[in-house]
């Protein structure tokens, strides 16, 4: 049960962060506690979106370039259900996840029935995300280009908290839950089938694996998790527009984090999100120190370089590197 112990240790470590917050802020690394918490919640939301991607992309080998379709659906559902239909935000969260899963199932059904794989699957998911982005940018229900604001109304029942730590712990709880889920999947028939499908679909079919069903399950679950990340994003920042919800940025973050962290592993997405955003922030700080002002895009240049380096030199990601060192 060492796997469960490491999940517990990692989650406890992250849960202890608020204890270190005063020291981190005091050391001048972060402008203030707000900056630190916003960043850490952001890391957890990206980690969650990436955990979703990793399920279909990492274990199942179905590289989606359009997980924004699911993130955005979760984000918009969370915003629209409460602002337009007066639904309680907790209930909206559940509905957002269900809607994300539905979108995943539909896109998955269409793509997998057409036997799209590899680059073709990547392209079709990208196109779906773009269609959603354009529609969301024009449709009245999403607030069009102006986006949708969720009114500030700080109450527990409203999924808005007075204390900064509360939302951090909520996001952490979801990440921990998905870590556990991932571990259970790894040890289940479904998880083994998923890897078999990734490695060789024909061989899997010959052994009685219904590959279409396995891939559909994976993309549905994957979409649900990424939609949860989107819903949390809305609830944390209380605003969503088409470029945030369905923009290419989130599709890229969701696939970069697992690849950098360790594709097809339980901790890969979380480690990757921490690494990427950590290095990105460090690059921003360094640029600021060198040039005296911020330069846009620097963090993303770091992401891109990191992606190429990982693929060239560390196909098993940061976790693979740590593994090799430990041995």
């Amino acid at each position, binding site marked *: 049960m060492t796997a469960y112990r490491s999940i517990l240790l990692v989650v406890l470590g992250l849960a202890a962060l608020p204890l270190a917050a005063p020291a981190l802020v005091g050391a001048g690394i972060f402008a203030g506690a707000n900056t630190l918490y916003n960043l850490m919640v952001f890391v957890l939301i990206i980690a969650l979106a990436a955990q979703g991607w990793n399920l279909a992309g990492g274990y199942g080998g179905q590289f989606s370039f359009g997980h924004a379709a699911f993130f955005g659906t979760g984000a918009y559902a969370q915003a629209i259900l409460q602002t337009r239909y007066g639904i309680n935000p907790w209930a909206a969260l559940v509905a957002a996840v269900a809607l994300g899963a539905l979108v995943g199932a539909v896109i998955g059904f269409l793509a997998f029935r057409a036997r799209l794989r590899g680059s073709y699957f990547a392209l079709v998911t990208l196109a779906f995300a773009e269609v959603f982005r354009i529609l969301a940018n024009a449709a009245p229900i999403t607030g069009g280009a102006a986006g949708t604001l969720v009114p500030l109304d700080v109450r527990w029942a409203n999924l808005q908290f007075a204390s900064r730590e509360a939302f951090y712990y909520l996001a952490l709880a979801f990440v921990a839950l998905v870590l556990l889920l991932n571990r259970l999947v790894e*040890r*289940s*028939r479904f998880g*083994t*089938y998923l*890897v*078999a499908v*990734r*490695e*060789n679909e*024909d*061989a*899997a*079919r*010959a*052994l*009685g*694996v*219904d*590959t279409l069903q396995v891939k559909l399950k994976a993309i549905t679950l994957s979409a649900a998790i990424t939609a949860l990340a989107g819903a949390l994003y809305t609830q944390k920042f209380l605003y969503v527009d088409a470029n945030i919800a369905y923009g290419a940025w989130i599709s890229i973050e969701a696939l970069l984090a697992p690849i950098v962290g360790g594709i*097809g592993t339980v901790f890969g997405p979380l480690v990757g999100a921490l690494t990427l955003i950590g290095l990105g922030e460090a690059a921003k700080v360094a640029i600021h120190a060198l040039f005296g002002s911020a330069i846009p895009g620097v963090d993303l240049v770091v992401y891109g370089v990191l992606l190429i380096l990982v693929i060239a030199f560390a196909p098993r990601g940061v976790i693979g590197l740590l593994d090799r060192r430990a041995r």
Partner: protein
Amino acid sequence: MLNVEGVTKRFGGLVAVSDVSMTVAKGSISGLIGPNGAGKTTLFTMISGFERPTAGRVLFEGDDVTGRPPEALALLGIARTFQIVQPFAGLTVRENVAVGAYLRHPRREEAFARAEEVASLVGLADLDRPASALTVAGRKRLELARALATDPKLLLLDEVLAGLNPSEIRDIVPVIHAIRDQGVTILMIEHVMQAVMSLCERVHVIANGRTIAAGTPAEVVSDPQVVEAYLGQGAAGRLAGRAVHG
């Protein structure tokens, strides 16, 4: 157990398999032989559901299963191995075999227990290794174990002996006997004639997509048409002539 009735497969203008009929008796080991490009593997892909025949029927235990997908046939009890063995690289040897075992044992513990039984039957050890670390002979055994773990009634073996050296072949022939002794019917494509002679009770020979002979191994190898298919036109006559003169 298996009846192939007048099966034909055309790819565009090319006829890969033409009106082939054959029967595999329950509990037997049967061989499917023929020169390279004869259409043996194409016939296998149709029996196992990866390709749909252009014409003809495939009957399994009396039911028409023509054109059913491979995963459905696996559930009915038809398993196959592939000529080019490819283990699931991300999984251990045990998990590889378990992919097969999960078909009848959804719970992990039971699937793993069944996987271990099958692994020991085919002589696979050290199950916690990554499957990608196996040798060619090890991969062949793994391919066999995976298919066997689905508890098939009919096992289709596509050149499990190809690429093995004589001592490895000697090691694996008894494994195939042991599998049959457990009640599994076997149909094998094979090039290693010695193994065919010692393993198979009946042999079906195809060349250029057509049946040219069928019978016991001894009958088949003395059939002039078979000799010609393998050695070229007129070979049977030359051999016979040499036998007379020598």
